[in-house]
């Protein structure tokens, strides 16, 4: 654990007189290592450590009887502030909330769409199966919809951006107050697929655009988040698979480079496994 490593660092320095700024800077190397091991992006770590250094060389640390713990506290607090002090929820916009879900292949979008629908069931949601490429993707969403008794709209042989008009029409005619659209996984460097996403957004005019990302994403998290955000101006991020033991450094990277909030987290494969994002819990996890 970082706390123990820092304690060890400072134990070695005991009896060498008062703690100096240099001692703290040396200790911050352990923090840097912990953040990199937690998959926080290299550049993000650099800037984060520089920020923390200012606070870490303060008197509370230099005069503390347990400087290691003080430093952990400084880093933890800075992480929490950076990740977003309070939890940020999905906003509902009467009379019709429109949520667009996007992200890389296999990140957990289709499952997350179903989880969101269940959470917001009181809005009488309509799901739109906009992945026309992956074998059985539409079936997958229909199976999930059936489990929840929530209707799934799909227009065979239609491009996703063309499906929207009928979907919105159906939603209005049937008293749905929420539409959630699932899209195909795509690479941020696939120009045709990113262009499709832009067309989908223009046709759908979502009130909420969510990037679904895998919590165990490594250094590439920055690039992925920046590209999706640049093109779509996302409203928030949903991090999935946090029921594993990924430290989740991607959370910090994505939050810092886009400034967008992490709104929810996926914590399992079941339809109930969606939770609100708590910055302090993720901060503790990153530092573990």
């Amino acid at each position, binding site marked *: 654990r970082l706390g123990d490593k820092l304690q060890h660092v400072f134990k070695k320095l005991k009896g060498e007189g008062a703690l100096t700024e240099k001692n703290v800077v040396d200790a911050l190397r352990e923090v840097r290592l912990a953040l990199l091991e937690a998959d926080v992006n290299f550049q993000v770590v650099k800037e984060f450590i520089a920020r923390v250094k200012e606070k870490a060389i303060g008197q509370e640390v230099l005069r503390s009887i347990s400087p290691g713990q003080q430093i952990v506290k400084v880093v933890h607090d800075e992480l929490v502030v950076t990740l977003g002090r309070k939890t940020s929820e999905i906003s509902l916009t009467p009379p019709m909330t429109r949520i667009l879900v996007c992200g890389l292949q296999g990140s957990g979008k289709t499952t997350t769409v179903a989880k969101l629908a269940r959470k917001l069931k009181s809005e009488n949601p309509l799901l739109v199966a906009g992945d026309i490429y992956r074998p059985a993707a539409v079936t997958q969403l229909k199976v999930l919809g059936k489990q929840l008794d929530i209707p799934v709209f799909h227009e065979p042989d239609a491009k996703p951006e063309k499906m929207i008009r009928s979907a919105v029409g159906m939603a209005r005619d049937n008293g749905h107050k929420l539409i959630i659209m699932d899209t195909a996984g795509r690479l941020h460097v696939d120009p045709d697929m990113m262009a499709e996403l832009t067309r989908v957004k223009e046709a759908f005019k979502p009130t909420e655009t969510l990037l679904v990302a895998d919590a165990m994403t490594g*250094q590439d998290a920055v690039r992925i988040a920046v590209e999706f955000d640049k093109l779509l101006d996302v409203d928030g991020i949903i991090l999935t698979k946090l029921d594993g033991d990924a430290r989740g450094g991607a959370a910090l990277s994505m939050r810092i480079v886009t400034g967008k909030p992490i709104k929810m987290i996926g914590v399992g494969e079941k339809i109930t496994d969606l939770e609100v994002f708590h910055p302090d819990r993720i901060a503790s996890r990153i530092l573990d």
Partner: protein
Amino acid sequence: FTRSRKLDEEMFEQLEEILIESDIGPRMSGRILGDLRTAVKTNKVSDSAGLKALLQAEMIKLLKSPPAWNHNSDGPTIILIIGINGVGKTTTIAKLANHFLKQKKKVLLAAGDTFRAAAIDQLKIWAERLGVDCIAHQDGSDAAAVCFDAVTAAKARQVDILIIDTAGRLHTKAHLVEELKKIKRSIQKVEEGAPHETLLVLDATTGQNGLLQAQVFYREVDTSGLILTKMDGTAKGGVALTVSNELSLPIRFIGLGEKIDDLTDFNPREFITALFE
């Protein structure tokens, strides 16, 4: 002399950044650069280009000489595909089947993911496109039973290759790791030496968690090789190097897209060169 020393240190820092940003991980990067410093002394490297070339050569050595495939000499070769959720197992199985079909092998698939919505449908569509059979039960049926039937069918039909799909599962879920062991035991009831290959699928965008995944699956179900998917993105897949080296596991294939032909044999030189691009 002092000036060139400083350049070297800065060069080492630049190299460390490249390695860490490729998801090799800070500890492994440190180890690789430590070995590089030793190699620099014996190789008398004098400039940054020479240093980079030496590093690439050292890293290629870390990945060379994989053992031969464990083929079954008298019966179907049974390949079990495992990995965490969403890494690309099902799609990779379709690509692998295509790869073996091109070698004129007779291939059979098994829909061992009986849990996830439309998982069986997904593999069946691929099987249909490839013109191969797919052994499947109902949604929610026992995965081990499907695999038992699949191996029985593979032997009866005298296929060359049986590829078994399994549900995505996090290595942290003990009951799901147990299920994998049960699947292996069921397979072994029908064919003692099976599965002949247990391939772990890793997503190239995964960070250091890939190492934890691999360690658990290696220890618990005796993984024999790796497949690295989604290398058509911008991630370098460096964690696969760390896994391969630490567990002595060969990387067999690279996934480069979502289509049936998007699978290539792993080439260490290409992999390392791409890492530095």
